[in-house]
């Protein structure tokens, strides 16, 4: 390319060339989240939005939505939708209540002994997966659109939650059970005391943060080295280092804040684990790649030998299990299984996925994007609460954010 044409393209043109291979949409959404955090830090009284406790709240209050969003983004990439997850979470919360807490009297369940907390959780997740089998059967093997199947499921599971709970609540849960939704790793900071750390810092939180940052760099460098070895194009190095330094700084900052609150919430550990696993599933397993292929072009996927029915079936089983986990988190956090639990959460999960860059037509979307989408909603809600914005205005703003995020996608696609 000649110098003249380079000059004509100017700074922005040159930059966009340099940024080739960089996913602007994905990074844009990340910057939007950052912007929101800064905005609320500046506007909330005494910067209440960035106090250690508030960071901690942000995680535990949004954990169950994020868990739902992980399953939801997979469903949406394949070109389906799941409207039943909120109701399913409520039903599973109820099941967990029955399994773990002393069962209700005169409800027909009294033959069942109360299970240990871990067995209750596993049982509840198994029931969730079974519900997924039910929905997956109708979608994949009977061929009823997921919208209909899960719309029916939305009523069905809410009804079953009510039946299971007989219009009352079950609780309280044992402490170990509650810890998943509400607990922190070494909240008493026994380790910190033992090694003589200043008492306002939680030792495990600092260790976990350090390990997290190490893991980020280890993975990033390893991937980049592999790509270079195979001659694959890579992000420009300024971008590679810039991005990972920014990410590490964020992690360090949040980790440092959490260490000054109660430490690392168990919910966060669970979430990080799920995000890592499911990102790998989506990018690196045949199952995940088949999901993208099905969403991208169903016919082509079929004709290349992908067993579309089986993939669709397992997608819903997986969603059922994740919705169950979400239900457990909700019950643990509220310390009680209630019939109204998870009301409308399916819509929050779906919004997270679309704000996170998934396409309505399917074939496009990422787990991390959906997490950022979920956090944008979470930060927005949390910030507006701190600013004492009324629920009416909150709903209006959240609706507009969803619409604009997707509109931005459509516009940028049309411009190409």
């Amino acid at each position, binding site marked *: 390319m000649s110098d003249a044409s380079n000059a004509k393209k100017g700074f922005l043109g040159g930059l966009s060339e340099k940024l080739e*291979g960089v996913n602007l949409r994905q990074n844009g959404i990340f910057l939007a989240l950052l912007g929101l955090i800064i905005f609320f830090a500046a506007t909330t009284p005494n910067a209440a939005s960035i106090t250690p406790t508030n960071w901690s709240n942000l995680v535990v209050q949004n954990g169950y939505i994020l868990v739902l969003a992980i399953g939801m983004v997979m469903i949406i990439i394949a070109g389906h939708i799941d409207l039943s997850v909120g109701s399913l979470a409520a039903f599973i919360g109820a099941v967990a209540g029955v399994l773990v807490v002393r069962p209700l009297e005169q409800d027909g369940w009294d033959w069942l002994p109360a299970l240990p907390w871990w067995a209750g959780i596993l049982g509840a997740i198994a029931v969730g997966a079974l519900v997924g089998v039910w929905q997956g059967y109708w979608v994949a093997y009977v061929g009823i659109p997921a919208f209909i199947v899960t719309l029916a499921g939305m009523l069905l599971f809410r009804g079953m939650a009510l039946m299971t709970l007989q219009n009352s609540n079950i609780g309280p849960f044992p402490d170990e059970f509650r810890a998943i939704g509400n607990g922190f790793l070494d909240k008493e900071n026994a380790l910190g005391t033992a090694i003589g750390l200043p008492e306002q810092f939680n030792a495990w939180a600092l260790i976990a943060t350090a390990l997290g940052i190490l893991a980020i760099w280890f993975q990033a460098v390893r991937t980049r080295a*592999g*790509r270079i*070895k*195979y*001659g*694959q*194009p890579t992000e420009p190095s300024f971008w590679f280092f810039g991005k990972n330094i920014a990410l590490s700084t964020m992690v360090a900052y949040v980790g440092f804040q959490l260490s000054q609150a109660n430490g690392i919430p168990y919910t966060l550990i669970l979430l990080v684990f799920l995000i890592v696993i499911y990102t*790998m599933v989506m*990018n*690196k*397993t*045949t199952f995940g*790649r*088949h999901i*993208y*292929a099905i969403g*991208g*072009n169903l*016919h*082509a*996927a*079929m*004709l*290349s*030998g*992908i*067993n579309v029915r089986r993939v669709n079936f397992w997608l819903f089983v997986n969603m059922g299990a994740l919705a169950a986990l979400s239900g457990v988190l909700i019950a643990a956090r509220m310390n009680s299984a209630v019939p109204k639990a998870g009301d409308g959460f399916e819509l929050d999960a779906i919004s997270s996925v679309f704000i996170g860059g998934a396409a309505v037509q399917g*074939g*496009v979307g990422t787990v991390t994007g959906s997490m950022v989408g979920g956090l944008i909603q979470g930060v927005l809600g949390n910030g507006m609460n701190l600013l004492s914005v009324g629920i009416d205005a909150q709903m209006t703003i959240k609706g507009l954010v969803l619409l604009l995020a997707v509109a931005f996608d459509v516009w940028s696609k049309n411009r190409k």
Partner: protein
Amino acid sequence: MNNILEMRNITKTFPGVRALDNVSLEVKRGEIHAICGENGAGKSTLMKVLSGVYPHGTYEGDIFYEGEIQAFKNIRESEAKGIVIIHQELALSPHLSIAENIFLNNEITKRGLIDWNRTNQEAQKLMAKVGLREKPDTKVMEIGVGKQQLVEIAKALSKQVRLLILDEPTAALNDEDSSHLLDLLRQLRSQGISCIIISHKLNEIASIADKTTIIRDGKTIETLDMAGGKVDQERIIKGMVGREMENRYPAHTPTLGEEVFRVENWTVHHPEDKARVVVDNANLYVRRGEIVGLAGIMGAGRTELARSVFGHSWGSNISGKVFVNGKEVDVRTIRGAIDAGIAYATEDRKRFGLNLIDDIKRNISMASLKKFVKRGLVDDNEEFRVGSSYRESMNIKAPSVLSIVGKLSGGNQQKVVLSQWINTAPEILILDEPTRGIDVGAKYEIYLIIQRLVDEGKGVIVISSELPELLGICDRIYAISEGVITGEATRAEASPELLMKYMTKEKEKSNV
């Protein structure tokens, strides 16, 4: 003014393709004018220019209709002047009644509301005109294809049609319905309605048309006067295929090995209309190193045969046997067919072949993803390496294999499709219209790829609507007509005339 229509020197180009090159057409008032040509010759494009689907300004040349120059911007404008086109795939709404369909987008209203009494009354009149004996409120989905065709014509009449264009009107009809339709066209002619008919059924054309214009490679070849029965099918065929064979096909000497693929007594029924036989007791075989052609007009059952063999991906009630390397294989699922060594590259790569929003390397690995799995995880570096090697060997023109497939040209997309299937390491590749919609240079490259494949000892079946292509690259050609394999010719025997004769051979009537 004797001519109702004159199209003068129409030229229409698409990126990279000249679909119509200086085509002229004259249609007299009250005449049935047939247009003949091979698939892809430009017939439909010409009709789309006439009806305004391709608006004025997107083509060169002039359309004189009723003595005036016309500049249609859309179908509405051409219909307003009495030009109505009935497409091969009928444009009826199956859940609406006959009357509703006839007056769709042309509703009879009274004070802003639909006047149902008059709608049904008028519909009844039109239905009587076309000889359709049904109630006006019968749903279109409840009547057969033949009657649906009549509904389309009634709809055209309701728009005061003066020039009726029918694209393959009898392709989906049985003999009785066909002859009824042709009678109706004669009747309309006597009422002064002119008609352009596009058809592959040459015997019908010979019996009904007053004039026949032949189009080949986007050019008008000749207009034959059909009066007096001087022009027979052979004469039309000669006009359709009689082109000089240029050096468009790379020379190749085949090295034939033993039989690699065989289909025996293969019968397939339509997936919805389960009584309809679409492939009728087909038998064919392919040897290693052999390029075998499958010729047939559209709808003859070529693709249906291929897709039913490929994992029963089309059709119902399929019977027969498939052998690969002499061993019978189970092709009931696509995975099974692929594992047995069969690959099928679709005729419609955008709809059925590619994930257009994904990149080249992932499209190439799509049908063979298992090969890239290491310790349970897909190795994307390996995908990149394999994809890049195909990019080089197939000459896929893209900056890298990370380019999005939807942005490639047709020829390059086709090379991605071929790479995708070659990477499944098949014994036999069925290539359905492998050069459709791609330019001449890329076609040549595709031919070379096909020859390379057979030189490696694979068998290849090429399905194509272009006879010269089949004659140019195939070692042996089967012809299929109405689901029956009607003939077979080696490279030495094959000629356009012979194949066209096989391809238009009609089923022997066993009953009536």
